[in-house]
């Protein structure tokens, strides 16, 4: 398969987690140094690392957001004009989902008050996980970038939203899209 996105994604997650670990190590080291007031012993870059306020999931989400904004421009190029919020969310669940995640969503529900629940019974980045509940915690990292992708795509289409995933049993995933009123 050309362009092994899954492998890149896995590597990206590993790197993000590693730098998160470094960050918390730097933080505790900073505390130690600071408590001893041994200020001349502060290693270069330690302060920067210690005060970097991004954890792995935020990092991944940020990357996804940027990618989503670019991708949606291409996917929406040939689609009809999208006007209403519902049309836009439907577009995300159909054309965008197919292009980016390789399949349509299985279910879309809304309370008509700005909350949408998208259900994907076999979400693409979770394909490699064994089915069931054992690895739900680890799967969270595999959903951060996709959430960013969705949020970035919506944002480009002028919808500000919070996107959060829930997994009850792998690889089925629910995405909650909560529209922020302008």
């Amino acid at each position: 398969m050309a362009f092994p996105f899954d492998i890149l994604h896995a590597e990206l997650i590993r790197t993000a987690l590693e730098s998160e670990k470094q960050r918390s190590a730097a933080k505790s080291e900073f505390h130690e140094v600071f408590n001893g007031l041994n200020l001349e012993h502060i290693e270069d870059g330690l302060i920067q690392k210690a005060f970097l306020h991004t954890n792995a999931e935020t990092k991944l989400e940020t990357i996804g957001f940027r990618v989503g904004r670019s991708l949606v421009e291409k996917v929406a190029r040939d689609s009809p004009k999208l006007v209403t919020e519902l049309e836009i969310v439907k577009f995300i669940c159909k054309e965008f989902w197919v292009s980016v995640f390789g399949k349509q969503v299985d279910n879309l529900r809304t309370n008509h008050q700005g909350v949408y629940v998208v259900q994907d019974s076999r979400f693409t980045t979770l394909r490699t996980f064994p089915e069931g509940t054992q690895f739900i915690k680890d799967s969270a990292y595999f959903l951060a970038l996709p959430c960013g992708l969705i949020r970035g795509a919506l944002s480009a289409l002028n919808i500000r939203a919070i996107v959060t995933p829930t997994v009850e049993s792998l690889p089925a995933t629910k995405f909650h899209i909560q529209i922020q009123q302008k």
Partner: protein
Amino acid sequence: MLGVVGFFIYGRENIRLFDSINPKYSNQLLEIEMFTYCSLDIVDEKSQRATEMYLGQLFTDQKYRSYGFVTNTGIRMVLVLDATSAASLKDQEIRLIFKKFHGFYCNTISNPFYEIGTPMKSRFFDEGVKELYAVSE
């Protein structure tokens, strides 16, 4: 021959992202700018009612004519033509120009070093406008 005066791209909040004026018209910069701003107001009006991205003719005066296009992501594009030019572009040709520039826009935002919403520079646009003006010789 075709009389293309300039091409402009604006973001959702009418922030200018890209502009180019045919060097042939460089002595009319101010007029063209004014004309483009007037056209941009009409983009807002027209896009509310439009059923497609292409908005058709926006505005015309004795010197210029403008055409508009709004993408699903709220990017506005304005094409300014010379109204005094004998030959005029067909509707289909204008649509094609917008389609092409939309493609250039997509390519340009795919550059990770480009910060979305800031003025754009890319070889795609450079080549695109060169072609526009070359045809208009």
